[in-house]
């Protein structure tokens, strides 16, 4: 009796196991809808409200679902999106937008002037301390001139303010923007499952060129070791930022596209703590660190050397000549250290967020390079959250290697933080000359003059050796050869609407 029962159980279990195994082999489901699965390194653990989302990883995805009156194209130009055209008053104080007619939100309702005013007012809202979008503290008023025209007036003239008009326009009627995002972009939100996926579908009523692929599934691959196996195994078709070493492990099914990350990677120094409060020490570090060697070691020489807080995607603001300011010179470095009172070198703690392998790699090479001038950098890896609270917000650090990105294509996006009074000035940089040049740049109404002053700012940062500037990192995108159309942007965004299936 017992034996029979046991046998039955065994038989049942073998059957179950077989069913499971067969189920597993069922393989790809055939369907008429086109779809792409894209791996992302961290979940969108954020608000889906485009005005409240803070993580760069969220913003680059929301780019596909939301649009502003204008939006950047892949060359970095601002093109009209929800606005059909715009004009700026002579002095750069008043911006007038005439709205494109017939544009629909994902819920089917039409975009009205009220929605635009609601969205812009919301960004400028100061009820939570600072405005939701910091740049909007400059906004004086938003007025509806007629049902197709909205006028924005600034407190002070600013001819670059258009760059901030890419803030998302959202419907005033949406009660839950944090979890139910409704925008006007080429893709609309379908669902998300924490730590699992984020699904978007093509928005059929999109006003512009529609997306090619019907369905985009973002799959969270939190474990960096799993990226290559997931790509090769076929569970994801694309991954936007793979490392040089990963690209070498990819199978022949993949194409590797190369672009830049659009970050200023540097060893950021706390200018307030000794010995970094001495410009000679900072310069000595610049002379000792060799960016080219770093690029050679960590990414086979790929990447772009930087000499100040500006990267090449910014075009007219970028100053390549600053790269040569500190040609590697160990004797000079030692001499400067001696002058500053450190003839035998010193040691400091180099804090690095542990989730960014590219910054850890750079920090390790920097530490080796600094040994040549008897300076010991003790690398301390900390969680990203601790980095934000201790290093960034608390400014309690000596030096750190990170990459800073630009939230918009304006020089202030990179330069504003080095104002001595800026809230984001986590390195405590303080220079009267800088503050003056920056203020002049802001006040200037002539574009050439403005550019001149911004360049002056960059030069001061380089000459004062505010930080040890290193590089704009190379960015490798792994894309299955079944797809094509990936475009790099000079901003931290991913545009899925351009991707398409290659006909076979």
């Amino acid at each position, binding site marked *: 009796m*017992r*034996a029979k029962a*046991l046998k039955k*159980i*065994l038989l049942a*279990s073998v059957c179950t*196991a077989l*069913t*499971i*195994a*067969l*189920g*597993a*082999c*069922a393989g790809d*489901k055939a369907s008429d809808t086109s779809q792409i699965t894209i791996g992302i390194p961290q*979940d969108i*653990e*954020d*608000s*889906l*409200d485009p005005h409240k989302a*803070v*993580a760069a990883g969220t913003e680059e995805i929301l780019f596909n679902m939301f649009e502003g009156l204008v939006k950047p194209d892949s060359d970095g130009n601002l093109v009209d999106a929800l606005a059909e055209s715009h004009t700026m008053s002579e002095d750069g104080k008043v911006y007038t937008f005439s709205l494109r007619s017939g544009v629909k939100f994902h819920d089917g309702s039409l975009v009205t002037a009220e929605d635009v005013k609601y969205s812009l007012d919301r960004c400028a809202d100061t009820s*939570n*301390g*600072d405005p939701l979008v*910091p740049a909007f503290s400059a906004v004086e008023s938003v007025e509806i001139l007629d049902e197709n025209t909205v006028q924005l007036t600034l407190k002070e003239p600013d001819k670059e303010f258009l760059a901030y008009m890419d803030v998302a326009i959202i419907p005033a009627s949406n009660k839950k923007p*944090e*979890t139910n995002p409704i925008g006007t972009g080429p893709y609309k939100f379908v669902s998300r*499952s*924490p*730590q*699992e*996926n984020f699904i978007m579908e093509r928005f059929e009523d999109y006003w512009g060129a529609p997306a090619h692929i019907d369905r985009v599934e973002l799959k*969270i*691959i*939190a*474990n960096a070791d*799993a990226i290559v*196996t*997931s790509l090769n*195994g*076929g*569970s*994801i078709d694309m991954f936007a930022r793979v490392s040089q070493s990963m690209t070498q492990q990819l199978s022949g099914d993949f194409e590797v596209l190369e672009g830049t990350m659009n970050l200023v990677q540097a060893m950021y120094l706390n200018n307030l703590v000794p010995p970094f409060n001495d410009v000679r020490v900072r310069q000595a570090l610049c002379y000792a660190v060799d960016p080219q060697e770093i690029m050679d070691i960590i990414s086979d020489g790929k990447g772009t050397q930087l000499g100040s807080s500006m990267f090449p995607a910014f075009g007219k603001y970028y100053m390549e000549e600053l790269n040569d300011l500190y040609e590697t010179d160990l004797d000079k470095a030692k001499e400067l250290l001696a002058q500053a009172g450190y003839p035998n070198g010193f040691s400091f703690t180099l804090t690095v967020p542990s989730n960014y392998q590219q910054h850890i790699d750079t920090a390790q090479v920097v530490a080796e390079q600094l040994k040549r001038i008897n300076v010991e950098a003790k690398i301390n890896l900390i*969680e*990203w*959250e*601790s980095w*934000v*609270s*201790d290093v*960034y*917000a608390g400014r309690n650090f000596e030096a750190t290697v990170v990459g800073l990105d630009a939230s918009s294509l304006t020089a202030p996006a990179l330069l504003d933080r080095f104002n001595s009074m800026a*809230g*984001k000035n986590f390195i405590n940089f303080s220079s009267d000359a800088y503050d003056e040049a920056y203020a002049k740049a802001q006040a200037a109404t002539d574009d050439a003059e403005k550019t001149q002053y911004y360049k002056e700012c960059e030069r001061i940062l380089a000459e004062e050796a505010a930080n040890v500037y290193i590089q704009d990192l190379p960015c490798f995108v792994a894309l299955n050869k079944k797809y094509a159309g990936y475009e790099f942007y000079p901003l931290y965004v991913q545009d899925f609407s351009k991707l398409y299936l290659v006909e076979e």
Partner: protein
Amino acid sequence: MKYFAKKLAGLIATLLVVSFLVFLAFAVIPGDPATAMLGTEATPARVEALREELGLNAPLIERYAKWIADFVRGDMGTSYSYHMAVTEMIADKIPVTLALTAISFFLIVVISIPLGITCARYMDGALDHIIVVANQVIMAVPPFFSGILITLVFGLVLHLFTPGGYVSYRTDWARFLGYMFFPALAIALPKIAMSTKLLRTSVLSEMKADYVRTAYSRGNGTRAVLYRHVLKNALIPVVTFLGMALSDMVAGSIIVEQVFNVPGLGRILLTSISNRDYPVVQAIIVCIAFLVILINFLVDLLYKLVDPRITME
């Protein structure tokens, strides 16, 4: 009845202690949810406003009391990072972790029990020797490592599954189970080894008991003695072990979930800890504690089934 009341009181006390410890832990470790949420957009004014909004400025005890009051009413709060209801988040993930545990438990039972009996029956045979040695090796390998080996062998070499190719149970049940089989195997392997060894020893020692000699003398064959008499007694220590193993597996699946990229409770737990997303961490820990206690209770009931002499006191 008295027994249930006692168990229930124990359950509530445990949950209270566990949840308070979690609260306390977060008060001690560095990092602040408001700064974590705002990231590089954090300015002192915004952090302060957000802390106020989240109610983080209230004293610890007050926050804890509020949490309990909400919890009792079935409200586990809203996730700081996802802005979703925590109940919704967890309800979605519990089936994943439970399925993982259930499949591995199933594997343990159907593999180890026949194996243990066979070993005992053919003691000192070639098969027995092989299994005993294999057991020692498997027991020593931690699940995360066997997970990596399984990924390599079954995934990359034999292509029986796609590493990282998790399919949600909501999309396709069969493929979900097909994928979960492998992480479940990683969890089950060391437990199968232990359980087999335990059963083998237990059967062998029971075989020396007096009632076995009596059974033989009444003309029963080895087979009948083994299944009708010995097994019932020999299973008691195994049931104890399986009970412990089961609660261990609920908590232990967290690590294996990482290796196989399975988005279960463990994954959200780990990220929520690093985001300082208290409401989620709190809720998951309480859930896991509850499951562990529940399992222990069920094992107690099972004892009575296996051995009627055990009374519920």
